[in-house]
């Protein structure tokens, strides 16, 4: 747990090649999802003449800004299937990628503070069990045994009435995850091109044939958008719309502490989520800023709110200091579920809308999106998450299980 050593960096991570004039496929966005997609395109589909284009530095977007919580206890069958597949991949990836990114299955609790919460949570535990996802309902005493620093007194504004618990859930070192994927991609021949911003698309009729970038034009037969907060900006360049709204979401860390927090605790109701990083920082997040925004920072009143909740739940944190805060731009949908699949533009595919919770989905997003890009058809796990659901009405409403209000 918290005293574990960080893994040594392998000496060699990836090359920084010049972009070629053409590739079999181009992935826009070098975050976790873009890198995982490239990895599975190469590994599962033998497509190695491909490039990942990143406008900034590798994994400098949400990938390196998130609070790294990994779990699969979503409510609906479609979500449980894709997130649980992701969790199974997380369990084998350190070995497969030959890179220990400290995936720590220390369990995640989602607290219930009202009768409504309790009912929703117990229902979710039942739904999880039916879907083969490990889930338990804990009463306050059991919560206290697992996480002794949690305040279960009933004289606080929103007393802890119980929690769902997923023992196989946990956290991982997010930037190491990105580097692990990038290193393997590179080994398989994928070109990872940083400081390469996509500024437009080439089309032949309705078919995409290339991308314009600040490093020149690149021809390609397939484009996969993995640009998180900027997907709708890119879609507009390509001539279609996405039902996405971009919002700032922020996180913060304290200074280092002795190991005191053995699991991950989330509360949707009072709205804070807390884990203790491997080195010892308390890592915390809360809700999104209500307004649309592309600023990688968040509002101070959101921090105030989350700190009030944190101190009530964990009185021991009252004297901890905030060391750093930062924000990312998350791409939210109206049903709080991602959009993965084909687009109105031929040969262009989109993976977006993972909003506040896409880190946990990284391996499954990559695996299924690679399938869709390689074959032109949905994978059975991402099929329900197609853009068409907004027209058919087959929405996957995960607001309750998404754990970050938006």
């Amino acid at each position, binding site marked *: 747990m918290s005293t574990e050593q960080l893994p040594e960096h392998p000496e060699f991570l990836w090359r920084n090649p010049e972009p070629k004039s053409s590739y079999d496929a181009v992935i826009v966005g070098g975050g976790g999802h873009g890198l995982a997609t490239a990895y599975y395109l190469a590994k599962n589909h033998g497509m190695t003449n491909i490039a990942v284009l990143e406008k900034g530095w590798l994994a400098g977007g949400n990938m390196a800004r998130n609070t790294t919580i990994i779990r699969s206890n979503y409510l609906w069958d479609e979500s449980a299937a894709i997130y649980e597949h992701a969790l199974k991949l997380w369990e084998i990836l350190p070995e497969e990628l030959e890179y220990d990114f400290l995936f720590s299955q220390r369990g995640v609790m989602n607290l219930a503070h009202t009768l409504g919460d309790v009912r929703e949570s117990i229902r979710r535990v039942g739904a999880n069990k039916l879907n083969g996802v490990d889930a338990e309902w804990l009463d306050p005493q059991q919560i206290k045994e697992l996480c002794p620093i949690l305040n279960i007194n009933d004289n606080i504004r929103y007393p802890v009435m119980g929690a769902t618990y997923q023992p196989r859930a946990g956290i991982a070192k997010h930037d190491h995850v990105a580097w692990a994927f990038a290193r393997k991609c590179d080994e398989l021949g994928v070109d990872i091109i940083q400081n390469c911003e996509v500024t437009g698309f080439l089309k032949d009729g309705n078919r995409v044939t290339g991308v314009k970038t600040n490093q020149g034009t690149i021809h390609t037969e397939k484009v996969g958008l993995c640009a998180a907060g900027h997907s709708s900006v890119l879609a507009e360049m390509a001539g279609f719309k*996405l*039902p996405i*709204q*971009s919002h700032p979401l922020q996180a913060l860390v304290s200074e280092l502490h002795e190991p005191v927090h053995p699991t991950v605790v989330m509360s949707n109701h009072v709205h804070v989520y807390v884990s203790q990083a491997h080195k010892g920082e308390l890592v915390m997040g809360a809700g999104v800023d209500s*307004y*649309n*925004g*592309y600023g990688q*920072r968040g509002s*101070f009143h959101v921090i105030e709110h989350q700190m009030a909740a944190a101190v009530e739940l964990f009185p021991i944190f009252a004297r901890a200091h905030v060391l750093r805060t930062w924000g990312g731009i998350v791409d939210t949908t109206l049903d709080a579920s991602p959009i993965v699949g084909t687009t109105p533009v031929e040969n262009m595919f989109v993976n977006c809308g993972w909003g506040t919770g896409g880190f946990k989905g990284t391996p499954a997003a990559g695996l299924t999106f690679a399938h869709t890009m390689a074959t032109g058809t949905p994978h059975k796990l991402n099929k329900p998450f197609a853009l068409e659901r907004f027209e058919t009405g087959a929405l996957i409403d995960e607001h309750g299980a998404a754990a970050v209000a938006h």
Partner: protein
Amino acid sequence: MLLIPCPNCGSRDETEFHYGGQAHVPYPENPNDLSDVEWAEFLFYRENTKGIFAERWLHSTGCRQWFNMLRDTVTYDIQAVYPMGTPRPDVSVPAAAESGTASTDAESTTTGTSAPSISASSIAPAATPASTTAPKGATK
């Protein structure tokens, strides 16, 4: 935190307001004629502008009136405030700065509307003093 110039109450902290998303989205004139695609468009598709965005805000803990606002979603500068039901003012756009340079203090978001004022419903940044054509008058 944004300092939002309510047209009725003057500048107040963002926490007093409620965000209402994109402005100027009319309810379909003939709902019965809409196809599924058009319904999807109306229900789920909104602009997600990177730059100047017309949006609605409700001053929930103040005058409890809705109004429209033009705000830059990159710098968070507030360019204009104008009543519901009036057209979007024509604000010539200064080049958006990159993210992380947002200025949300009083200097950058208002030009002298610290006192409640009903007529001061349009606010332009110093860079574009004469360029707004926001309608005057109270919100509906």
